[in-house]
């Protein structure tokens, strides 16, 4: 009678083990989805509430890109931007804008943590434009800063860009543009490190590396051009507005600052830059109207913030 009992025990242990392994794999997936669900709940009822549930699926699909890969891709896109715009020579304003950006990024642990942190840079130019590259590189023109009336509105612009990077909108564009060709090259072994290139297959590897570089060069130029002229999709912009508003609230800034900035740009009107790369102000405001009202305490410190903003802007 004891033999079946032993066999039964062994089978029970095996079954329990298998069930544990299955449960562990499910738990891993659920952990990623639950963070997104929390964001979705925050915006429940709004037209873009599904965005953050989609973030979990996107995170799953983006596993091929580590922060290190995003960093090098981001540097390439940033270099393209910097070959078209000059950096504003105003260390005080640069420092101030970086402080506002870092404040938002470091007050929101849900925001992406890039390989080497966030960089916020003001570019010379009167037009309104703000763009971000993978890896935490955010650029905005002087015109964008000058259109803001308060630090809170400046923070709103930066929070929107931090949201784009966190949601990996740039990476999504890059992937769709280059994935097919680059994947074929990668399967051939292109893109190895220097040690591998110097080996017996050195010449072949070098040729493949060159081809891979050429593939990316064309794609990155297209992507940087899209960022500066065409912009992300309407859906991506509304996603970035919603998550950006959450980041603003997470820092202590009023979410209403994003609304007031969009309203002003919408009423002023214009063409090119921001106007050509973003959806109509009415669409964005309608989407943001679903967000909960700001708590009363966000207005604490408004005077100090506005004062330091005006001092730096020379107003």
């Amino acid at each position: 009678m004891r033999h079946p009992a032993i066999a039964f025990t062994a089978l029970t242990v095996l079954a329990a083990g298998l069930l544990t392994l299955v449960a562990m794999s499910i738990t891993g997936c659920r952990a990623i989805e639950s963070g997104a669900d929390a964001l979705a709940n925050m915006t429940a009822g709004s037209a873009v509430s599904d965005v953050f549930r989609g973030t979990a699926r996107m995170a799953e699909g983006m596993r091929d890109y580590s922060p290190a890969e995003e960093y090098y891709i981001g540097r390439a896109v940033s270099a393209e931007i910097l070959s078209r715009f000059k950096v504003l020579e105003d260390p005080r304003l640069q420092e101030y804008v970086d402080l506002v950006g870092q404040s938002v990024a470091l007050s929101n642990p849900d925001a992406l943590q890039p390989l080497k942190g966030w960089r916020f840079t003001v570019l010379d130019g009167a037009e309104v434009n703000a763009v971000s590259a993978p890896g935490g590189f955010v650029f905005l023109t002087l015109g964008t800063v000058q259109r803001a009336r308060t630090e809170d509105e400046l923070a709103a612009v930066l929070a929107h860009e931090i949201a784009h990077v966190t949601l990996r909108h740039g990476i999504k564009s890059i992937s769709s543009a280059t994935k097919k060709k680059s994947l074929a090259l990668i399967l051939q072994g292109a893109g190895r490190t220097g040690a591998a290139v110097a080996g017996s297959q050195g010449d072949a590897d070098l040729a493949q590396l060159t081809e891979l570089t050429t593939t990316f060069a064309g794609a990155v130029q297209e992507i940087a051009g899209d960022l500066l002229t065409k912009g992300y999709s309407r859906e991506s912009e509304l996603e970035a507005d919603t998550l950006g508003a959450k980041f603003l609230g997470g820092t202590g800034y009023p979410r209403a600052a994003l609304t007031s900035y969009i309203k002003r740009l919408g009423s002023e009107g214009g063409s090119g830059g921001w106007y050509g790369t973003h959806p109509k102000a009415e669409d964005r405001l309608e989407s943001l109207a679903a967000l909960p009202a700001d708590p009363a305490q966000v207005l604490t410190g408004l005077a100090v913030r506005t004062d330091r903003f005006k001092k730096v802007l020379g107003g």
Partner: protein
Amino acid sequence: MKQKNRWSRRALGLAGAGGGLAGLILALALAAAALAADVLIVTQKETYLRKTKSLLGPKVTKVQEGDELVRIEEDDTWFKAEAKGSVGWIPRSSVSQDRKVVLSGDAVAGGVRATEQSAGVRYFNPEVERQYRAGSIALDAAYKVLDRIETRKTSEDAVTRFLREGRLGDPAAWATAEAPKPAASTAPVAATPPWKR
């Protein structure tokens, strides 16, 4: 009867040994899976385990890209993990649960644990970047500007002061900072921005 009992005992012993072996293998497999699941790889160049769930919270210990942490517990945003005998909180996006995560060329060159994928880093790595920027003088110049931008570093202390001054961030930090208020001074106000005083 005696013979039968002997065979029974032998069969029982074999079955017991087989069951024990299966159990041991299973236990080892489970232990390995559990250990693998509990390892987190740092994906930021340099960051910290924190005492509290805050990116500006007190630092427990510094960790670098490629370091292995042991997961202790987690929630939607944070992992509680152990490194070098210290325990603290780290945001989920500062680490990877994938042991094959691609690390930067700097990290690999610096001698950190080279993952399977980091031996054949895809997409843009320093090698590809060198080729890419060498193709255009204007692009190379833009990269140099970017390198200068990357040398800029805003300290955590400056961000903390900036937040406090503007009544942003954690309100508890405002009270702490205000407690030892200095006596009123008659000295002229310096021309430095308020958040840097």
